[in-house]
């Protein structure tokens, strides 16, 4: 994993080139996998409903690899990791709250006659 050389200061953790290349080829493999499942997935009998979650799972594995090894999170102070993960919590709140509110004006939108815009009074 991280080479620990006595000559280096305690905060210096160079990651071994072997691990970096390993992560890189892993990421390339996952990219090819995600394009392949998108291109061939339904042809191989995968239900279409699976395609999106599968793509997101693969993207999340890739994000994990990048964060943990390229971004040194594996060796980083836990407070930095906490700060980063807290942003994901707020993104979840942002998306979740907005999604809960999305139906609010749906009746008004549905009542709007899109095909007869000439009949809509826009004077007010």
């Amino acid at each position, binding site marked *: 994993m991280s080479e620990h050389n006595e000559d280096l200061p305690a905060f210096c953790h160079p*990651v071994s080139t072997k691990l970096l290349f390993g992560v*890189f080829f892993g990421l390339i493999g996952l990219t090819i996998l995600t394009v392949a499942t998108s*291109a061939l997935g339904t042809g191989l009998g995968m239900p279409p409903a699976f395609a999106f979650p599968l793509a997101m799972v693969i993207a999340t594995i890739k994000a994990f690899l990048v964060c943990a*090894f*390229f971004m040194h999170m594996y060796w980083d102070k836990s407070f930095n990791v906490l700060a*980063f993960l807290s*942003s994901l919590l707020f993104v979840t709140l*942002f*998306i979740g709250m*907005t999604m809960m509110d999305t139906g609010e004006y749906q009746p008004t939108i549905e009542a709007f006659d899109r095909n007869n815009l000439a009949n809509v009074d826009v004077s007010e």
Partner: protein
Amino acid sequence: MAVADSHDTHDDHHDLYDHGEFIAHHFDSAEQQFDSGKLGIWLFLVTEILFFSGLFVAYTLYRTNHPEVFEQAHVFLNKYLGGLNTIVLLFSSLTMALGVRSAQLGRNKNCSVYILITMVCATMFLGVKAVEYSHKWDMGILVRSSFDLTYTHPTPTTEIGKSLHISDYLVYLCIVPALLFAGFVVASAISKLINKNMLAKFLMAMAITVSGYFLGVCIGIIFMSATDAETGSSHASVIAEQPLMLLASTQDDHSDGDHDEADHDKADHDKAAGDPSHDGEHSDNEEHFGAHPADGGEASFDDHHPDPSTLDRDIGIFFSIYYCMTGLHAIHIIGGIIALGWLYWRSLLGHWRTDYFGPVDYVGLYWHLVDLIWIYLFPLLYLID
């Protein structure tokens, strides 16, 4: 580490670590300075994620409420070009991580090489993106308010566009990089003449960085014509190749029947002049599809080239979201290249040591975040099936 250390102890530290030039006097030690910077960059990355999350919310809302628009729109994105760009960006992440490692070990020369490769990959990414954008603009795939899908690609009017058979938009997108390239080469030569060798080397590296953009453009054009020919029927591939390899085959036909063509052009222009709803550009378009029904010029529709009249009228909103997300991401790439240029300069000066490599680490984290965002953008925009 006590914050209340006296000035005397600071002086001791400076002697102790023997690197006074880069340790700011308000830090006790190299480690404290590094940790503070690291926390700072993580907090910045948090704000970046929240910044992008607004666009992810727009995407999620629009996709949940109008899934049909996404199904119609994704056929206009070339997933192989997107995949190519993903690989380019992942590779730049690898070289960035290797650059950070070199800086940590105090190997300044290796670090500068890795940073240069990272910058070239970044500009390559932008070059491929420019090919994608200009292809869409040619077809009239724009944001919602100006979306006008026609498949009729305007003939290039610029001299470069005509001679290389590439879209005018692509020519425009290449102007700034071309000027930058010329500027860097000239500035590098001047620096060499006045014996500023380090500066000359830096400016030459910047010229190489910018040339990566043109490499990206070339790869993008080749990749796009190859993958489009594979996915479409023969008719469709004529349509698909037009914006880039503009009617290479039809151009040959033009030379065969030169006089006829001239007559056609004249007739078309007369028609256009008489009809106020058609401007000059439209008459050029009609020439391609109207004047050559025999050689496959007639627009034909298939899965990859659906009939515009069957598409949802709000399909342009997908592209509004697409341009905002990829455009904001591209702006981050440009910012990253500038930061990497600064790191490259400092590597040339030999600033990195085992106890001072913070700036490389911080810019590296930013660069990986840009990569991370693309990791999500790619399946969300390109792989909708």
